[in-house]
């Protein structure tokens, strides 16, 4: 009897295994599915217009342009627009591989949190997808051609996600971080601001390399011709690749938009983005230019930051909230003009004057950031969050006007690498 029952159970077990392992786990049917790699969101007359960029294999059609690879639909909600894509085109939009979401600035100016909320709560897209804002229409950004990559969103990813944990030139955020910051006591968020830079339509040979001298300040960007920027393209700006006969686009994401209480509050310039990154995450690749006077001469030095140690703490002293910012930087000299060859130059050692100038510049930049936070009432140093977590006894007393009462102490120390 037991032997028979054993056989029945073995058969049942085999049946379970067969039903389990012969299933295709509902894997996507590639013929009916559009694999979306980026989404653009623009304002429509009623609601939003979604532009979804599909991944098309490069070898299938050499004449394929970014415009051909875009599906778009309008609806009152994001969900509706995505469904409309499916209904109107017959393609099932598969968002699992969507890494970039580009939102037009006009959308940002209205109540955009329901959009972020949808992306956070839906299972269709991964919450690590990067959020960004663009000044022109998102559809145009996605359909633009760029020498960086044959798919424009891949080019954007190169700029936004390039060594995500190392560089300081772009302040990136993803759906989860953005929403989490917005729900925090500080109620702030940020997104990189993508600016498209049109290159001339003359054919040109590009080197294809992305060198590191990225963070020369804005004024330096202005004096460097675009065609020669290919050699020093970083700072959230990129260019490279092939011979181009048509007008093509480069992207600059070094500026950042900041939000407070679900509304646009202020913006960071490239150098402020750099400085904020230095205070919030470990950086391995950052370049700053410093101007100073030594021996009666004006000097301009490009400094490479090797390592940064940062502390941003909130202390309540005699009822006054004080933000204590400490930044220690290990750096070395990359380049100096006018060059004055000295023995220590071969070790890339910065002179004491250069170090002091760098300290004072960073001090000034940090103070500007704190003042910006106070004036725009955008708590991007997470002062309220720090108050809640580390000084809970003062929370109810100070929460409402802490930014106005906030005092600060800044300590910057720069040291040579060697």
């Amino acid at each position, binding site marked *: 009897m037991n032997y028979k029952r054993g056989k029945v*159970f073995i058969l*049942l077990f085999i*049946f*379970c295994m067969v*039903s*389990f392992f012969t*299933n295709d*786990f*509902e*894997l*996507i049917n590639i013929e009916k599915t559009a694999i979306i790699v980026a989404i653009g969101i623009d304002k429509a007359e009623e609601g939003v217009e979604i532009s979804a960029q599909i991944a098309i294999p490069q070898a299938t059609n050499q004449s394929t342009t970014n415009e051909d690879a875009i599906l778009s639909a309008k609806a009152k909600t994001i969900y509706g627009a995505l469904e409309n894509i499916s209904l109107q085109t017959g393609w099932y939009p*598969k968002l*699992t591989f969507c890494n970039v979401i580009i939102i037009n600035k006009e959308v940002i100016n209205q109540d955009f949190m329901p959009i972020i909320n949808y992306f*956070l*709560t839906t*299972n269709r897209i*991964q*919450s*690590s997808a990067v959020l960004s804002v663009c000044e022109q229409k998102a559809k145009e950004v996605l359909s633009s051609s760029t020498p960086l990559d044959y798919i424009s969103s891949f080019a954007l990813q190169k700029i936004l996600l390039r060594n995500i944990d190392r560089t300081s030139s772009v302040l990136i955020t993803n759906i*989860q971080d953005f*929403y*989490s910051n917005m*729900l*925090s006591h500080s109620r702030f968020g940020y997104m990189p601001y993508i600016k498209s830079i049109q290159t001339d339509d003359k054919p040109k040979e590009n080197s294809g390399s992305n060198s590191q001298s990225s963070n020369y300040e804005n004024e330096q960007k202005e004096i460097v011709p675009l065609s020669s920027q290919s050699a020093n393209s970083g700072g959230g700006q990129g260019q490279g690749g092939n011979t181009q006969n048509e007008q093509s686009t480069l992207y600059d994401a070094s500026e950042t938009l900041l939000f407070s209480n679900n509304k646009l509050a202020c913006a960071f310039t490239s150098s402020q983005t750099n400085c904020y990154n230095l205070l919030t995450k470990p950086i391995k690749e950052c370049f700053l230019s410093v101007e100073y006077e030594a021996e009666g001469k004006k000097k301009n030095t490009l400094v490479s930051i090797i390592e940064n140690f940062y502390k941003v703490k909130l202390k309540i002293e005699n009822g006054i909230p004080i933000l204590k910012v400490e930044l220690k930087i290990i750096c070395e000299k990359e380049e100096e003009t006018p060059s004055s060859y000295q023995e220590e130059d071969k070790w890339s050692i910065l002179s004491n004057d250069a170090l002091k100038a760098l300290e004072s510049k960073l001090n000034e930049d940090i103070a500007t950031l704190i003042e910006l936070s106070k004036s725009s009432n955008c708590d991007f140093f997470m002062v309220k969050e720090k108050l*809640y*977590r*580390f000084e*809970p*006894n003062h*929370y109810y007393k100070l929460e409402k006007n802490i930014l106005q009462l906030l005092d600060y102490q800044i300590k910057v120390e720069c040291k040579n690498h060697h």
Partner: protein
Amino acid sequence: MKKQIKTGQICAIFIALLPLTKVVCAPSYFAKNCGEKLWQPLIILLLLDLLLLLTCYFIYKKHDNKSFYEILISVYGKPFANGIFILYAIFFFAKTVVPLFEQKIFIENTFYETLPQAPVFYPALIIIFYLALKGLKTFGRTCQIASFITAIGFLLIIFLGIPSADYESLLPLFAFSNKSAPICALTALTYFNDAICLLFFLGSFKAEKKSEFKIFLSYLIPFLCVILFYVTFYGIFDYVALSRKVAISEVGIFSVALINVGRFDHIALFLLALSSIIAVSLPITLSTHCLVQIFGENNRLTISLVLTLMLFGVCVTLSAKYLMVFEFISKYFAPLFVLCGYLLPLLGLGGSNNELQTG
């Protein structure tokens, strides 16, 4: 001769099954109700369960390895014992529903690209039926294997999650009162109160050297791992933790190892999915055990079949309405969970030793 369950098997049951039902949808429920203080209701539940373990230990010492059913008969009479065991059968059946639905959600969400059209989850009920039919001894043996599977899968998931967690999000630890902690603990009893199993192992339990100490540790360590999982989950997702419905499959996804190597956390998730089916079988096995005590061993097949079919019916009709079912069970069954989980075991402490020897 009675089939005896060994100390090692009881320990294996706790190690293999204790963490699994608590790490699917429960973490987001705790995060929603208690925010950064989600560990507080867990501590309440842990303390209650440790007290329950202690109660079981005293019952065991007092009644010299009699089963709970035998104790109730000898002290309060057979009709009373039958009534209590019917109540326990309902209790265990109700405790199965929410975790079973969550396993279904876990498997469908994690392993399928799109919602599966075929009823892929239901063959799991065959395993549940089999374990209910075979009884506690077989269950204990199964758990000896499952304990390794769970330990490997669960620890891998936790270790993937720890580097991405920011534990500062749990601050402040004690400032601001958290009035929702006891209510959250009360409404989440459907996931917890596993120590109650020990009460039904009495009588078929073979005490060994330092048994009580081993059982205590095998309960405490997995529970502490569950607390670690919850705080890691909150450390990773912070304010959006409440929106992460299937916590177990989300905790590891920000790991640098996954970014570089690929989703090898799916191996751990497959292991946990296997053990989870056994975990959701435990209450049904105990429900069968309760009814078998009343209706006799001969009816075991019928009882286990009826219970599995009832579970299948509930699953088919209500699994799409998970939230509604969860709210209903956590709200209206909470008194039953408290009564059966923490109050009725005290009945085992009644009766004098003499009475028991003669009775």
